[in-house]
C-alpha cells in the first residue's frame, strides 16, 4: 500500500509501487479505489456547496492512470489535462494536497492558484487549454534527451483534443527530433457533449503514424492488461529515445464536468458493466477488498478533514509561496494499522 512519501520517491511512482511488496492486482485495485473514492467524495462536496468552480472526474478511466504511471521513475515527466485527478493521485499519492487545492487552500498543490486544471507537483503538470501543452511537454522531453538524463515524458490527452492543430506541430517535431515522449490518448468516446464521430475524422492511430511515430491502441479497462501493455511501450520510449503514440479506448462513467451529462443512458449502462473497478475487485477476496476500501475511505476522509483545517490564501500569498506540507501523519498510522505485505 502507499507509504508516506519521502524525498526518495516523491517523484518516483515506480519505486513507490515496487517497494510495496503486495501482489500487483492488490496494488492496482487500491490505487484505482483511491481515485474513485476521492472523486465521489469531491462530487458530494460540490453537492454540499463546499466546493466552488468546476471539476472533471476520471471515474471509469482509472485503469489508464495505474497502467501507465506506475512505470514512471524518478525525473520522468507527466503533462496532463483537465481530467487529471487520477493521474495526479497515482503520480503523487498525496490526496490531501489535491483536496486542499480543490478547496482553495493555501497548502494545496499550487496554493489555490491553479485548481486541478492547473497544477504542478515535482515533474507533474497540468493545463486547462486542450492540446496547448503538447509543445511544452515535447520540449521538456527534448531537454531531458539533450541532458542525457534518460528520462521520458508522458502526455495524457483526450480524443477530442485530437482536434487541436498545435498537437500535430508537436508530433511532427517530436518525431523529427526523436524525442522520448509517450502520448497517451484516452479515448473515452466523448468530448464534453460531443461524440467522437462528430469531432474526429479518420482514425486515431493513423494520426500518430502520419507523423512517423510508432502508434498503437488497446481497448481495455483491465488495469493489469494495461499495466503490462504500457510496461513494454515505456521501456521502448526510454531505451530507444523516440516518441510513441498510444490510444486507450475507454469510457468516462460520469458527467464531463460537474453536472453536464446528456449521453444515452443505455450506452452508459453498457460501459458500466466493463468498468475497471468491478473487474479489479473480483481479483480479490471480499475481505481483502473491504479492508482496502476501508483504508481508502479513511485516507480520503483524512484528506478532507485536513484540507478543511487549512487556511485560505491571504494577500501576501499573491507573491509568496507556502512550503509544501509534509505527508499527512495519518498515512503513517494507516500503514501501521494496514496489512502490509
Amino acid at each position: 500500500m502507499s507509504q508516506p512519501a519521502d524525498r526518495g520517491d516523491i517523484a518516483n511512482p515506480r519505486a513507490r509501487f515496487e517497494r510495496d511488496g503486495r501482489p500487483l492486482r492488490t496494488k492496482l485495485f487500491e490505487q484505482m479505489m483511491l481515485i474513485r473514492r476521492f472523486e465521489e467524495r469531491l462530487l458530494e462536496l460540490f453537492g454540499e456547496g463546499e466546493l466552488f468552480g468546476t471539476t472533471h472526474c476520471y471515474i471509469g478511466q482509472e485503469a489508464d492512470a495505474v497502467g501507465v504511471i506506475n512505470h514512471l521513475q524518478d525525473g520522468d515527466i507527466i503533462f496532463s489535462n483537465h481530467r487529471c485527478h487520477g493521474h495526479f493521485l497515482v503520480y503523487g499519492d498525496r490526496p490531501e494536497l489535491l483536496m486542499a487545492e480543490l478547496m482553495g487552500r493555501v497548502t494545496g498543490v499550487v496554493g489555490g492558484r491553479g485548481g486541478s486544471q492547473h497544477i504542478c507537483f515535482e515533474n507533474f503538470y497540468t493545463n486547462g487549454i486542450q492540446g496547448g501543452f503538447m509543445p511544452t511537454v515535447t520540449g521538456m522531453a527534448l531537454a531531458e534527451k539533450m541532458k542525457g538524463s534518460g528520462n521520458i515524458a508522458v502526455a495524457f490527452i483526450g480524443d477530442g483534443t485530437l482536434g487541436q492543430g498545435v498537437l500535430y506541430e508537436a508530433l511532427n517535431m517530436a518525431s523529427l527530433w526523436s524525442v522520448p515522449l509517450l502520448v497517451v490518448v484516452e479515448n473515452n468516446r466523448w468530448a464534453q457533449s460531443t461524440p467522437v464521430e462528430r469531432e474526429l475524422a479518420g482514425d486515431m492511430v493513423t494520426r500518430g503514424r502520419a507523423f512517423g511515430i510508432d502508434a498503437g491502441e488497446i481497448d481495455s479497462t483491465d488495469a493489469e492488461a494495461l499495466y503490462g501493455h504500457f510496461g513494454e511501450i515505456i521501456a521502448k520510449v526510454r531505451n530507444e529515445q523516440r516518441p510513441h503514440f498510444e490510444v486507450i479506448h475507454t469510457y468516462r462513467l460520469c458527467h464531463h464536468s460537474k453536472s453536464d451529462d446528456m449521453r444515452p443512458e443505455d450506452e452508459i449502462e453498457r460501459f458500466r458493466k466493463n468498468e475497471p473497478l468491478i473487474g479489479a475487485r473480483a481479483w480479490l477476496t471480499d475481505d481483502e477488498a473491504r479492508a482496502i476500501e476501508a483504508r481508502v475511505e479513511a485516507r480520503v476522509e483524512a484528506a478532507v478533514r485536513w484540507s478543511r483545517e487549512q487556511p485560505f490564501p491571504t494577500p501576501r500569498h499573491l507573491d509568496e509561496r507556502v512550503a509544501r506540507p509534509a505527508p499527512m501523519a495519518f498515512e503513517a498510522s494507516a500503514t501501521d494499522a494496514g496489512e502490509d505485505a
Partner: protein
Amino acid sequence: MSSTPATTTVLKSLNGAMHSMMEADERVLLIGEDLLDPYGGAFKVARGLSERFPERVLTTPISEAGFVGVAAGMAMRGMRPIVEIMFGDFLMLAADQLLNHISKYRWMYNDQVHVPMVIRAPMGARRGYGPTHSQSVEKHILGMPGLHVVAPSVLHDAGALLRAALLDDLSPVVFVENKLMYARRQLSAEGGRIGELYARSSSDRYPTTTVSWEPFDHADVTLVAYGGMVEIAMEAAETLFFDEELVVEVVAPSSLQPLDLQPVLDSLQRSGKLVVCEEGTAGAGFGAEVISRVSAEGFSLLKAAPKRVAARDYPIANTRSLEDMILPQVADLVRACR
C-alpha cells in the same frame, strides 16, 4: 427591429436574437463547440437552435483557430456565421486568424470581399474557473484595423447588439459576453429613467448608455465601464451617492472598437474627473485607450488625473480568496472615484 423586453435576462436576449436571426435569414448559421441540443453550448446560449435549424448549427471539433477561420471562409462566400468560442480565453488560439486573415481580407483585397461574421466570446471571472477559463482577453485584440469589438452590458439590449453586429455587412465583429451577466436582467430605459436612475443613450448602431443618480445637471465623476464591470460600477456609484453624496455617472459603451468618445466627453463636461474600469489587467487595455483618447480630444475637460481600475497583474487564481484580491471590486471603484 424588435427589441427584447426589459425583464429578459441577457442569456434569453442573446438566445432569442439568434433564434430570430436564423429564422429570418437563411444565411445565418452558428458554429462552435458543443452547440447541439439538448446541450446547447457550455453556457446554454445556443439552446434550441440545433433542433430548429439542424443544418445551420455546426458543432465542431476542439479547433478554435480552425473553426473561426472556417466561418470566415463562409462569410466570404455569402453566409452570415456566428461563431461561439466556448470560453473567451480560447480566443487567442485564433489570434492569427483575427490579425492576419479576418481583419485584413477586406482592405488587403482592395474591398473586393467582406467578412461579415460575429465571434461571440464569453469572458470574465468570479466563477472559480481558474487561470485559463476566467480571463477578459479582449484587450489583446483591440486596435486591429478592420476588426470591431462589441460588448453588451446590463445597460444594453444584448440581443439587439448581436443583431446589429450580424447585420454589419462590412466588418467582422468580436462580441464579448460576460459569463456572470448571462443570468442578469437587462435594464432598459423608459422616459429617460431606469428605475430611480436617470439614463441616456447615444443613437449609434452600438449605443453608449449613461446613467446617473441626478438628472445630468451635475456630476462629480465620470466612470467608464463596459461588459460585466458595468454592474460593479453601478454598485460603486450607488454607494458613493448614498453614503458620500457623490454623483458618479456611469458611462457604458457597447462598442470598444470603434469607440464613440462623445458620451464620455459629454459626461466629463459635467464632472471633470475620469475613472475607467475593466475586469482584465490594465496594461495597454481599454482603459489606456480611453484615457489616451480623452487626453488628446478633451484634455481641457480633465480637472484631475484620470485613473484606471483593473485587475491586478496576476493570472486569475482558482481559489476565491485570491481571485477576489486580484479582480477589481466595488471597493476599488469607490476608492478611485473619491
